[in-house]
Every structure is written in structure tokens, then in C-alpha cells.
């Protein structure tokens, strides 16, 4: 610290008046730091913290957006737990997350391995494979909705010509979720690819050299060296994907709006529908609280166990 007096330790409470003087002096000396930090804090308090609390409060009411809300206590939560849709939504969310997480990470892994080999044109492949990640989901969702369309899309005719009976994809209760998950995998595999590639390239050359000296062949190198070393990165990616899967809204809303029936209703989708279509704001807030609780637990677990050094307490 260049201004060492800012590191004064806070005097014990018994110091009373003298202690207050010291604290004020500390704050005064650090005033620049405080002034720098204040705008961010104010923004977060006003636009994140306050809505969170007010949302928590709202979940205790029943309200349709007009007029006065009626207090109902925990009735919304009881209703939620008894609602069969809740279990369906949870099941869908986890299924979707599972499929997309494994699909994206496995595909991303193989892509990273392939690119790491530096075949001809690897730079172009890298650019092409990451391109879908940045395209708005509204567009990819719209394109794939048409691609999956059994009447005008090319996918089903192609499958039929191979002798496979093609499902009706987004209109089929069983296949809708898989269809959407496939699109997500298609769109986002570039991200794990990039991250795993960087992780692989970060393995120090000495490790590989030592292994080469020991006479290791390619397959063993993969098994014993590369894979274990990138395992933490894979864990991080899995966690990120889990959290993203729970929140997923854009793609599903564009492709199926949660249908057919409840087949593609995930937590985020269901929440939006209840709030802005069914106009059940209090009840939707209860769902919002549950979603927040689940996502935040995973996020905090992730921060604490997988990236402990990036956060201070």
C-alpha cells in the first residue's frame, strides 16, 4: 500500500470516542477508493438488490398487475409445490441441462483436440466453430425451427432418404426437448472448445517433454496427462452449463414457447409465461424465488469450490 495509514487496524470498541475518530480518519484517507467504488455499489443496490428483495416480498402476495395485491403468505409456495407443472419443469430443466452440457463439452473436447493438432487451416476452423456462439438466439432458433419443420425443412427429407423414420421434432412431445437441446449444442459447442483448447495449450511443455522421454504414445498421453490436467476446466464448464441450462429462455421461447404442452418448459420459460402471459405476478414471483434459490446455490457452490482464488471474503 503506498498510503500506509489506510491500513490502520480498527481500534477495539472499548476505545469509544477515540475509536470513532480513528475510523473516520481511516475513511477520510481512503475516500478516493470509496468514491471510486460507490457508483457501482449504488447501481447494484438499486437495480439488483432492491428488486431481489421486492421480488421476495411479492411472492407472498397474489396480484395480477392491476389494482392492489392481496396478501396470501406462503400460499404461493404451497401451490407451487403441489403444482404438477413444477415437477415437469424441473425435470425438463435438468434433462435439458444434462443433454446440452454433455453434448457441448464432449463435442467441444473433440474439436479442441482436433484443432490442437494444428492441421492445415486450424485458424479458420477455430473462427468458424465459434461463430454460431455469437449469433443471436432469435436467429438461430428461427432458422432451426424451419430446418426441423417436417414439411419445408431439409432435415426430415434427408433422414427419410436414409431410411430413418423422422419424428416431427418440435411438434412431438418426446422430441421437442431433444430438438431444442440439439440446437443449443450446435450453437454453443464453440465455447467449451475454446476454453478446453486454451487449457490444453496451457499444459507446460516440460510435462510433455518428460512424458515423451518416458516413451509415451499418443493415446497414453491423452489418457494419463492431458485429460487429468484439464479435468478442473471441465468441471468449471459443467458448472457454467448447469447454471445456464436452468436459466435458458431465449432459444426455447423462440422455437417452441415451452410447447408442445409442457414438453419444453424450463424454469426460465415457465416463469416468464406465468408472469407476463398468465398475469399471475405473485405466483410467478414465488417461482422466481425458487429459481433464484436453485441457481444461486449452484453459483455459490461453484464460486466457493471451483474458483476460490478469484473471490475474497
Amino acid at each position, binding site marked *: 500500500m503506498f498510503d500506509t495509514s489506510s491500513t490502520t487496524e480498527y481500534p477495539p470498541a472499548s476505545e469509544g470516542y477515540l475509536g470513532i475518530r480513528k475510523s473516520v480518519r481511516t475513511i477520510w484517507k481512503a475516500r478516493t477508493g470509496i468514491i471510486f467504488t460507490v457508483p*457501482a455499489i449504488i447501481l447494484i443496490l438499486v437495480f439488483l438488490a432492491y428488486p431481489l428483495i421486492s421480488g421476495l416480498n411479492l411472492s407472498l402476495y397474489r396480484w395480477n398487475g392491476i389494482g392492489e395485491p392481496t396478501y396470501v403468505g406462503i400460499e404461493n409456495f404451497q401451490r407451487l409445490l403441489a403444482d404438477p407443472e413444477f415437477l415437469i419443469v424441473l425435470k425438463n430443466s435438468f434433462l435439458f441441462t444434462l443433454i446440452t452440457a454433455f453434448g457441448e463439452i464432449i463435442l467441444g473436447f473433440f474439436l479442441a483436440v482436433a484443432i490442437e493438432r494444428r492441421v492445415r487451416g486450424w485458424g479458420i476452423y477455430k473462427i468458424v466453430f465459434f461463430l454460431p456462439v455469437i449469433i443471436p438466439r432469435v436467429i438461430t432458433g428461427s432458422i432451426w425451427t424451419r430446418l426441423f419443420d417436417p414439411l419445408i425443412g431439409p432435415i426430415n427429407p434427408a433422414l427419410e432418404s436414409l431410411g430413418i423414420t423422422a419424428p416431427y421434432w418440435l411438434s412431438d412431445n418426446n422430441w421437442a426437448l431433444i430438438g431444442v437441446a440439439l440446437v443449443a449444442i450446435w450453437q454453443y459447442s464453440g465455447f467449451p472448445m475454446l476454453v478446453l483448447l486454451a487449457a490444453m495449450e496451457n499444459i507446460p511443455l516440460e510435462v510433455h517433454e518428460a512424458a515423451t522421454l518416458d516413451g509415451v504414445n499418443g493415446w497414453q498421453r491423452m489418457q494419463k496427462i492431458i485429460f487429468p490436467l484439464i479435468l478442473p476446466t471441465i468441471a468449471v464448464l459443467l458448472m457454467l452449463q448447469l447454471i445456464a441450462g436452468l436459466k435458458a429462455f431465449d432459444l426455447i421461447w423462440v422455437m417452441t414457447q415451452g410447447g408442445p404442452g409442457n414438453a419444453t418448459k424450463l424454469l426460465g420459460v415457465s*416463469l416468464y409465461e406465468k408472469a407476463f402471459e398468465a398475469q399471475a405476478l405473485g405466483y410467478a414471483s414465488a417461482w422466481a424465488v425458487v429459481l433464484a434459490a436453485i441457481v444461486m446455490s449452484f453459483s455459490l457452490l461453484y464460486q466457493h469450490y471451483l474458483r476460490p482464488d478469484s473471490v475474497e471474503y
Partner: protein
Amino acid sequence: MKTLSMQRSNFRLSLSMLMGLAINAFLIAWAIGQLFPLYYLFNNSLKTQSEIMRFPVKLPETIQFQNWSNAWSITNDVNLGNFMINSIIVVTVGLSLLLVVSALAAYGLERYIFPGKGGINVLLLLSLAVPIHSLVIPLWIFFRDLGLRNSLFWLAVLYCVTHLAFSILILRSYFASFPRELEEAARVDGASDLRIFWRIVVPISRGALASVAALNVIGMWNELLLALVMLDKTDLRTIPLSLLFFKGEYSSDLQRIFAAMAIMVVPTILLYIIFQEQITKGMTAGALK
């Protein structure tokens, strides 16, 4: 610097050659798979309605340029250009606000000690974890009651706030390894803290700030939920929002929809091609830290 691949090439056997072939095939196949939907989009945006429905893959018989000009104008007052400008406004304002506020906060938190820092850390941690979906309802009410809805500026503020904690995190670890000697030298010369920050730290940190911008710009550009909730007026729509409604309003006019999507995706692709290096570097750094 010797790369791993250079080392590996010393060990090519014929088995490796076979593997090489397989890998190339895999890469080409996936590249086709990734690009095909885009080809489908642009290809079909230049076809007639019946061509789109009957021959999804073939190139158009005659190129229907008017699809694009038809899609461009929605009504007499509003065209696709408006939507692009809206997106540009929101993202520019949001990003600028984000960079300023997060850089200041990250610097303040990293270089100074003051009471309450522990609480602030917890606050940042929580704001990183909370899903925006859970906040849309109270935010909608909040904005409605204060009349802040239907404002590109306040939407930009919202975009800034939702990316704030993450950006602060990244910039903090950057400032942690920023050499203090530069700041101390300036302090010895009598510069005030603010001056040190603006004149010395910020210019040198351009790279890190660019990474933060790259990391967040895509998310802001493609953001749908908040825009959907906060904007009712047609002429205020951002690109993702306008496409959503396009799909609804012209659901059977395939020519128009494809052309509109094709037009709207062009700036995104251009931005990506120009900045792809920063974007990919930023993404990996963000995830690996």
C-alpha cells in the same frame, strides 16, 4: 517458442497419418454443419416463397433481391435500420457505462482499504450469482411505476448493471497485478488519485478494458429478455426483439422473415470477423480465471 505441435510432428507414424485423415474429415464435416444453417438462411432469403418451401437446399432460380428491400421497410416510419440503431445505442451506452463504473470500482477495491469492503465483496458475489430471470418481475414493476420503461437509456443502464459484478471481478484481478511503481512515481510527482487513475492506469489498461468490452458486447447485443419486458413501442425495439416479433407478425411470409434475419445478422457477423481475436481471447480468460 517451440509449440507442442512442433514436438509432436517428430513422431508421425502411419497410424498418425490415418488419424490425421480422420481428424480432417471430422473438422470439415463439423465446419459444414456449422455453416449450413447460415447458408440456408442467406440462400433462402433470396428465393421466392414456393422455392423456399419446396427446395430448401438448392440455390435460387432467379435471385430475389427485392426480398431484402421488402424486408427492410416495415411501415412508413420504421425500418430495420431503426432497430439496428436502437441496438447500437443501447449497447454503446451500456458498454461505456459498464467500463467506466467497473474500472473505477475495481481499482477502488483493489488499491484501497476501507471499512465495509467485506460487505461489498459479498454483495458482488451475490449479484454474480443471482439470475436476471428472477428479477424481471420486480424490475418490470419498478420501472413501470417510475416511468423508466420504453427508454433505451434505462435499458442500457440495466444492461450495465447485469454485467457489472463480472466485469469488476475480471478487472480486479487485472489491477492486482498492475505494477504499483507507475502509480507511486506519479504520486511522488504530486498527482492526485483521480489523475493517476485516468492519466496513467487507464491508458495502460486498454487491453484489459478491451477484453472486458469484448466479453460483454455479445451478451448485450443479443439480449432478449430485458428488452422484451421493458420495451413496448415498435420503434424502440432492439434487433433481437424485432426479430421475435417479425416471426410472429409475418409468420407465413417466409421471404420477408428470412431476408430480415439475413440483414440483421450481417452486422453481428461483421463485428465478429473484425474483433474475433479479442472476443475469443476474452472468453477464454474469463472462463479460466
